[in-house]
């Protein structure tokens, strides 16, 4: 860029807008001059102090995001039985609405009455507390009201949270995001791909037209484990050979499995299967392995 001579350059004149009153340079808010005190230049002195606080908060914040992953439960399912809990900053309202004089036939009081008065007062505080006095200990009414609402906030939130924890234990249910994290951990230990990557590749049925397929239908296993062994009601039997061997499967047919599955041996018998058929069925199920099919 040619270094043109500065002097010849035409001086840029900033044309003021006639309607805008020309301000007298910087806006010097009256307060500072009234309080000479030890004031400090903002840039770079005070800004540096302020940003030291910013840096500390940022480090804490990032450590928090790294150590505590954001919770994620299971996909929304309207028929799921979940104890509904709003976010923590709504708990006080949530708990407050459970009280008799805030619900039932007093619901108007509960939803409009008191909250509107409370938040309305907070919104219009400068017009309600109009004295010149600013020190809180010299403004008993305003400060008392605020302390009262702070106390009730803390009490209601705490009460709602402990009640929720109590209900969880009573129902013996674990919050979903913890369940999901445990499952993800188990999957990772068992070496399965993490959830959300490829859903489990479909394990194919090993020799599909084996006569055992008829036993499987006759003995009514099909009604819980599905026509394609993918499970309907009962768990999927695809790749069951990886989990249980023949004897274990025979035992399961004879005695049932951890309380959920009843014993199916008698059902098989009166469906006309012989003991040898059931044995063959168990053997065929034991062959259902994930990598066996090539």
């Amino acid at each position, binding site marked *: 860029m040619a270094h043109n001579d500065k002097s010849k350059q035409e001086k840029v004149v900033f044309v003021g807008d006639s309607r805008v009153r020309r301000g007298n340079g910087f806006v010097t808010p009256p307060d500072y001059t009234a309080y000479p005190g030890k004031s400090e230049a903002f840039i770079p002195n005070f800004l540096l102090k302020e940003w030291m606080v910013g840096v500390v908060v940022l480090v804490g914040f990032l450590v928090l995001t790294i150590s*505590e992953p954001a919770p994620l439960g299971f996909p929304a399912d309207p028929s799921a039985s979940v104890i509904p809990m709003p976010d923590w900053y709504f708990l006080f309202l949530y708990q407050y609405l459970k009280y008799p004089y805030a619900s039932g036939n007093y619901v108007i009081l509960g939803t409009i009455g008191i909250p509107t008065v409370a938040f309305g007062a907070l919104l219009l505080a400068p017009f309600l507390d109009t004295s010149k006095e600013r020190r809180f200990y010299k403004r008993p009414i305003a400060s008392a009201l605020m302390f009262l609402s702070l106390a009730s906030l803390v009490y209601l939130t705490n009460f709602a949270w402990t009640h929720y924890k109590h209900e969880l234990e009573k129902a013996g249910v674990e919050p979903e995001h913890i369940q999901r994290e445990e499952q993800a951990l188990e999957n990772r230990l068992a070496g399965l791909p993490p959830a959300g990557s490829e859903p489990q590749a479909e394990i194919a049925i090993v020799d599909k037209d084996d006569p055992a397929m008829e036993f499987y239908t006759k003995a009514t296993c099909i009604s819980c484990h599905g026509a394609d062994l993918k499970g309907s009601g009962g768990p999927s039997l695809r790749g069951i050979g990886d989990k249980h061997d023949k004897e274990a499967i025979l035992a399961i047919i004879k005695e049932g499995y951890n309380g959920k599955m009843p014993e199916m041996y008698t059902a098989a018998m009166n469906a006309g299967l012989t003991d040898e058929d059931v044995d063959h069925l168990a053997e065929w199920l034991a062959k259902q392995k994930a990598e066996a099919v090539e």
Partner: protein
Amino acid sequence: MFKNVYDWIDERLDITPIWRDVADHEVPEHVNPAHHFSAFVYCFGGLTFFITVIQILSGMFLTMYYVPDIINAYKSVEYLQTQVAFGQIVRGMHHWGASLVIVMMFLHTLRVFFTGSYKAPREMNWVVGMLIFFVMIGLGLTGYLLPWDNKAYFATKVTLEIANSIPVLGPVMKELLQGGTIVGAETLTRFFAIHVFFLPAVLLILLVGHFIMIRRQGISGPL
């Protein structure tokens, strides 16, 4: 290098008064933690703004992967959190940022209240501040539903039920927020639009107003 570029621009646009006016103001003694540490309470406003910036940035980046429909919402959140590098960090920032910004804003509100800084001539600034408070709560409420997991679904159902119990306006408001008769596909896309476009727009306008007033009127004097 920067000096010359700055001078070159300044000659043409006279930008110095603009940022001088914003940044070059004396910091009085009673708000300076260096003089008496109790003045640290004056930091909460700045921190709230800092975290709001983080929320807006992390929110924007999340929308690169998030899909606001009921089939894909959960899968997209699970995908971005488990498959994409730093996904867990960015979603964590947005999640924890949400709670932190409400805490900081609450502390800021308390500081202004107990130092009586809402007294004349700063009444308007307090009212704008409270409106910002409600907008932030609204952002929290709508944002909570977006991952579309069970906790979010049922919490929103409860909140809309509460809104429904308001005598005259209730059912109308509930139907409007739900975008229909049930909490479903319409609710999610509607909450997404409110959370990503409407409320942030209102928030930014209010924040600009809040900052202009604080610049114009300066910090309230010592107690």
